[in-house]
């Protein structure tokens, strides 16, 4: 222990401390604002710091999200039990319809294969999937992200597409050792290159923090109709082409709205698409081979 030198230091320190306490509010407000600026400018180092913090808390988030998921499943299964008969009827009808589609798909696949072999088409790079569980949502009105339980050691890389159920959910924006963060396609910062399946019109899908996203940079007279399917175009090489994204729900003067095919509010598990392309310059970390 250090010997306390004299009273004079304490006498000097006391007013300083009072001063610091007095201005701590102002200092902390300034620090917060400085942090906002730093976050805007130094986004790469902020991202890696963020990934570390998320990694550190991921085990706790994982543990406390399990009971909630279980409770939700119990409630859901009770509701499903009630509707079992109707659901069964509906599924039988749907199954009959799908069997017809299967015949069509098999025929098309065979035809496709034979035509490809005639044309010597280079096959698409192979696609691997990494499954992950959602352990946290931001709980904020202005941020649409998810934290999932897969990271660098599972093969997750920045920029990979995230799929759930019927379609695209978003894109990996930050990768930790065993956790990573997915930016939902409805977030205001999300931009995804897409193509409309009927008109073959290329566009950018942009979120605006609502439940639907909008299409940008379309020519004013493009013949787009409600109900048209939107898939990823693969432009930029980040996403494989043809991943289902959503369906056009409204065409008006104010823009074209797209409802995501995946139910973004109840994603429990998702698949990250390892597209097998060399990593882009979006991922400058040296250890991503």
């Amino acid at each position, binding site marked *: 222990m250090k010997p306390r030198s004299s009273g004079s230091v304490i006498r000097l320190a006391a007013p300083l401390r009072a001063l610091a306490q007095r201005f701590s*509010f102002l200092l902390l407000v300034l620090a917060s604002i400085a942090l*906002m600026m730093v976050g805007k400018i130094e986004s790469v180092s902020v991202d890696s710091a963020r990934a570390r913090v998320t990694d550190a808390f991921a085990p706790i988030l994982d543990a406390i999200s399990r009971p909630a998921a279980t409770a939700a499943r119990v409630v859901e299964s009770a509701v499903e039990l009630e509707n079992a008969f109707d659901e069964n009827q509906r599924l039988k009808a749907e199954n009959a319809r799908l069997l017809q589609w299967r015949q069509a798909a098999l025929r098309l696949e065979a035809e496709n294969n034979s035509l490809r072999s005639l044309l010597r088409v280079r096959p698409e790079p192979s696609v691997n999937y990494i499954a992950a569980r959602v352990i946290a949502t931001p*709980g904020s009105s202005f941020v649409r992200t998810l934290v999932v339980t897969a990271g660098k050691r599972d093969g997750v890389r920045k920029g990979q597409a995230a799929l759930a159920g019927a379609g695209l959910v978003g894109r990996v924006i930050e990768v930790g050792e065993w956790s990573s963060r997915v930016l939902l396609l409805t977030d205001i910062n999300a931009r995804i290159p897409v193509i409309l399946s009927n008109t073959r019109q290329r566009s950018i899908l942009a979120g605006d923090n609502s439940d639907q996203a909008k299409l940008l940079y379309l020519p004013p007279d493009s013949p787009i109709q409600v109900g048209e399917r939107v898939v990823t175009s693969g432009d930029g090489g980040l996403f494989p082409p043809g991943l289902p994204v959503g369906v056009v729900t409204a065409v008006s003067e104010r823009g074209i709205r797209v409802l995501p095919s995946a139910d973004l509010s109840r994603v429990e598990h998702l698949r990250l698409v390892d597209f097998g392309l060399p990593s882009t310059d979006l991922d400058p970390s040296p250890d991503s081979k």
Partner: protein
Amino acid sequence: MTATFWQKVDKTGRNLAPFAVTVMMVLVGMIPLPVPGYAAVAPNLTLVSVYYWTIHRPDLMRPGVAFLIGLLQDFLIGGPLGVNALLLVVAQWAVLNQRRVFLASTFALLWVGFTLVMAGAVLLQWLAFSVLDAVTLSILPALFQGLLTVAVFPAVGWLLIRVHRAFLNG
């Protein structure tokens, strides 16, 4: 006078309770519930906790502590850094200045006081995000989040009173 080592450890541990509980609130607020539209309006439990401890134990919920918790929240939710830190520091400062009013009042008045703090927080958050994203965002989700937080305030407050009694009034 001469507290033993273990008594000191015990006291430090108890004094950490407000901080620990608030960090727990940050994490609990992030649990994904499969309810449509829940994530955008999940109640801001952290603010409730900071409000409660600033009124009852301002010595354990200092501006620096509020700042740290806000910073942790910023890191975890993936939004711009500094927004929640600013929010909690301002909330802590505002509540501390009116602390005598709150301390003497009934639970209903505490609730009204929290509603005012939450309204300020909604506005501040909306303003910060609109400036940082350089667009005018819709304030509606934040407003609903505020309403939901005000609605769960009695339940969370009751929980915090239990923690307060269990750890700090022994």
